[in-house]
Each structure stands twice: as structure tokens, then as C-alpha cells.
């Protein structure tokens, strides 16, 4: 192993320090608190978030709103997306019927859902949640569908020759075999749901983390915006890691490239 590999943790830490230094230098170069927040400014807002009850309250309520919207949108998307993906993978008629629609809706950029949900529910929590649902559900359907469709014949045919019934085939062969893809779909779904909630919150004025970041940037309180962004980053990374962990636990038997990440 090379020297670089041996000292990777040290070098990684060094890159973090370097990043902050460059940020510091560039902010000093721009020298305009209304264009780019300095690291100190951001740190100061982290302090405010901890000690100033107003900012703290804003943050906590925003966090609650955003996380609830993410989980609710994601949960509904999973509850609808998994069975639909299964039916599409299983029945050719349903496949041909829905496949063009699912692919088309999957291709629509998320922002285009914003006016739709706004018409139906106004600028509300429901609309935010619905945007997250609409973005996540098609991604989940496509992954589940692909997983079910690609269950190898070498698994299905022995089941058939041992006289497995439809339900047995489903629960004992197809479901376990397509589980890795389902898990990937769910992980993708949650990250798309996060995107959707943030986009919707930035456009609707209903609070939440996207709202906090957008408002702070809009009022040029950039330190707060960057601090909120950093917190959001850690939340997203944590959610992603949790999904990865669950995936590894659920499909520990499946060693494949897809499972590595």
C-alpha cells in the first residue's frame, strides 16, 4: 500500500482544514458579508442556534416540519410504490400499461410538481409532503419493478418444478431475490424525498429547513443560511447512512456492487 493510503485519515483531516482555510481566504477576498458568509460568521450562528432561544426555536420547529414531511412523503411513497412495482414486474399487462407513465412521470423535474400541488393544497404542509411523495414514488416503483423483473429464471424454475403456488413463489422466491433492489429503491426514494421537501419548502413559505435557508439567504443573513445548510447536510448524510446500514442488515447475503454503497 502506498504512503498516501497509509496516512489517509491524516490527509482527509488535512483536506477538511484546507477547505475551511480556502473558504476563509475567499470570504476575506470577497469581503462582503452579504455575498459570502465567513466561517467565523457561520460559527457565530451555530452559537446563536444553541443559546438564543428564538433562533433555537426556529431551528427545532423547522427540523420537526422537514423531517415529518420527509418521512411521511417517503412512507406513503413506499407503501404505494412497492406493491405497484411488484405488480408491474409480475404481470405483463400491468407492465405495458403503466411502464410509459411511470417512466414519463419519473423524468419530470421535481420543481414542476410544485405548481400542481400548490393548486390543490395551497402553500401548506400537505403540498410539501405531496411533492416529496411524487418525487420518491416513481423512483421506488422503477427499482422494485426492475428487481422483480430481473429475478433470475434459475431461481423461479426450480420453484415451479417443485410445485410452488403463486403466493409461495412470491413470498419464498421473488420477494427475497428482489429485496436488494427494493432496498436500493427505498434508499434512493428517501434521498429524492429530501430533495423534494427542500425544493417545496424553498418555494412555499411554510417554514421548515428549506424555508429557513431560503429566507436567511433572501434577507442576506448568510451565516444563518450556511449554518442551517451544514445541519441539513449532516441530517441527509445520517439518513443515507441509516438506509445503508438497514440495507446491509437485511440483505447481508447479497454481495454485489450495488450493495457496496
Amino acid at each position, binding site marked *: *500500500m*502506498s504512503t498516501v*493510503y497509509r496516512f*489517509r485519515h491524516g*490527509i*482527509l483531516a488535512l*483536506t477538511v482544514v484546507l477547505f475551511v482555510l480556502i473558504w476563509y481566504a475567499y470570504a476575506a477576498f*470577497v469581503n462582503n458579508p*452579504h*455575498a*459570502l458568509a465567513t466561517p467565523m460568521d457561520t460559527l457565530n450562528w451555530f452559537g446563536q442556534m444553541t443559546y438564543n432561544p428564538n433562533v433555537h426555536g426556529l431551528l427545532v420547529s423547522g427540523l420537526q416540519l422537514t423531517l415529518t414531511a420527509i418521512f411521511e412523503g417517503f412512507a406513503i411513497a413506499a407503501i404505494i410504490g412497492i406493491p405497484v412495482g411488484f405488480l408491474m414486474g409480475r*404481470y*405483463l*399487462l400491468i407492465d*405495458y*400499461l403503466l411502464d*410509459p*407513465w411511470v*417512466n*414519463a412521470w*419519473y*423524468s419530470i*423535474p*421535481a*420543481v*414542476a410538481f410544485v*405548481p*400542481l400541488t*400548490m*393548486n*390543490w393544497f395551497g402553500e401548506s404542509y400537505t403540498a410539501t409532503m405531496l411533492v416529496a411523495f411524487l418525487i420518491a414514488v416513481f*423512483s421506488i416503483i*422503477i*427499482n422494485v419493478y*426492475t428487481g422483480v*423483473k430481473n429475478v433470475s429464471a434459475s431461481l*423461479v424454475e426450480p420453484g*415451479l418444478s417443485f410445485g410452488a403456488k403463486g403466493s409461495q413463489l412470491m413470498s419464498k422466491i421473488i420477494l427475497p431475490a428482489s429485496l436488494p433492489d427494493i432496498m436500493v429503491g427505498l434508499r*434512493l426514494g428517501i434521498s429524492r424525498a*429530501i*430533495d423534494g421537501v427542500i425544493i417545496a419548502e*424553498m*418555494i412555499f413559505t411554510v417554514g421548515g*429547513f428549506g424555508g429557513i*435557508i*431560503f429566507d436567511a*439567504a433572501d434577507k*442576506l443573513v*448568510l451565516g444563518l*443560511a450556511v449554518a442551517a*445548510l451544514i445541519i*441539513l*447536510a449532516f441530517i441527509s*448524510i445520517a*439518513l*443515507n447512512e441509516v438506509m445503508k446500514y438497514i440495507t446491509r442488515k437485511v440483505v447481508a447475503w447479497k454481495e454485489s*456492487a*450495488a450493495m*457496496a*454503497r
Partner: protein
Amino acid sequence: MRREKKSWDASLVGSIPGRIAILVISFVVFVSIWQILSMIVNNVVIMASPLQVLASLESLFAGQVPVGATGVGTIYDGIWTTAELIAVGYAISLVGIPIGIVMGRWKAAESIIDPWINALYALPMVAITPLIYPLTGGTFSAAVLVVFLISVFTIIINTYTAVKYTSNQLAEVAKTFNASEFQFMTKVVLPASLPEIVAGMRLGLGRAVLGAVVAEVLVMFSSLGQEMMALQMLINTPGSMAIVAVIAAIGILALQSPRLIEHYAFKWKETERLQRGFKR
């Protein structure tokens, strides 16, 4: 995985004309349901009927600028700007391919870059958009930056995963035959991981389209996204729906046409492509 019982519907719908017929029928059903629903709701603000949306699409494509969306230009300007934005931002984010190859092949590079890429990939990049505006103003290049940031990490991660896993699998053989590093890369790793790199490029294009519209809504002046939100704020629902339809069409065109090309170009790797193509 087709069972014998399924043969009847396979013969009915399996052919190309059959699939087209199903598509047409389902489209007609969709539009009629939409029309009937909008007649029941009977409120143009909540639900514009397909006919109303079609009418405003017609007027948009006739070159008329809707009231309240002045300064935005005609729909053709908007489409052109969006296309330009996607093309430039996406072209720059293709730099993710060499980065991904380096990461997938050299452990040293991987060990340092990977945590950054992973973190930045997990971060909802759209949240950075409002922060770019104060720094740059509503310029085209600011919007390009947003497109780049939103799409590049998807491309890096797909390339990286593809190169890493193919090289592990095929390394033994190549080493046995005494391939040099250069030969190994150009003759083994790159051809083997090409389908997945292309799949990553397609997914990156999808992200670029998303990024372009996000940037238009939040950052850029005079664009389709701005016009959509302006009409939305004016409660001109048929107008904003018409632009939603245009944006949706751009997205569908950008995502589905490469899928067709890929389907024919990589027939030799069809199953694996299918299995892994949609991963992110």
C-alpha cells in the same frame, strides 16, 4: 419469469402495435379522466382542464407572452435558455467521469476523495441554490453552477462504482496475462464499465434537468421556471400548467431518448444494465 398462464396477455400486448395501442388507450383514458374531474371540480384555479391547458399552450407557442410574464420573452426563448443551461452545466459536470475513474482505480485517491464525494452526494444540493444567488446575482453562469453541482456527484459515483467493481472482478485475468496498467485500463476496465458509466451519465442528465429548473425558479432571471412561478402567482393556472407541461416534456425527452439509445447500444450487457442502471 413468464409463466404459461401469462401467454394470453403476452400475445395480446407483447407486440409493438399492441404496446402502442395500450399507450394510446391509456393516454386517452388519462385525458378523459382529467377532463371529467376538472368538469366536476369546475374551478379553473384548482384544476385546469386539458382543453384550457391546450389553449394556453397554443397561445404560448404562437409566440404570445402571457400577461404578467413580461420580460421573460416568448416560450421559444425560454426553451432555448433552458436547453442551453442544461447543455453547458451538464457538459461541465462530465468532468465527473475522469474523477470517478481515478477514484475507482487508485485506492489512495479513493481513500481521500470518497468521504467528500459521499457527503456531497448525500447533501440535497438544491439547498445550496439560495446561497449562490447573493454571491453571483441572477446570471447565467450562476445557474450553470447550480446545474453542475446538482449533477456532477451522480456521475462521479456511478463511474467510480462501475470502475471499481469491474476492475476487481477482471483484474485477476488481466494480471495473469501480464497486462500493463495502461492496457488493463483501456482494454479491460473501461469497456467493461462503459454501460454503467453511460447509465450514470443518463442519471446525471436527469439531475441536470432538475438543476436547471431549480436554478431557473430560484436564481435566474427571465426563464421558463420564472415564468411558471409568475403565472402561478397570478393564479393563471392554465398558463402555469402549460409551462409545467413544457418542462415535463423537456425532462421526458432528455431522460428517455438516451435510454432508447442505450438499450440498442448495450444489448450485450442488457441484464446487468437493467439491474444496475436505475440505481441512483
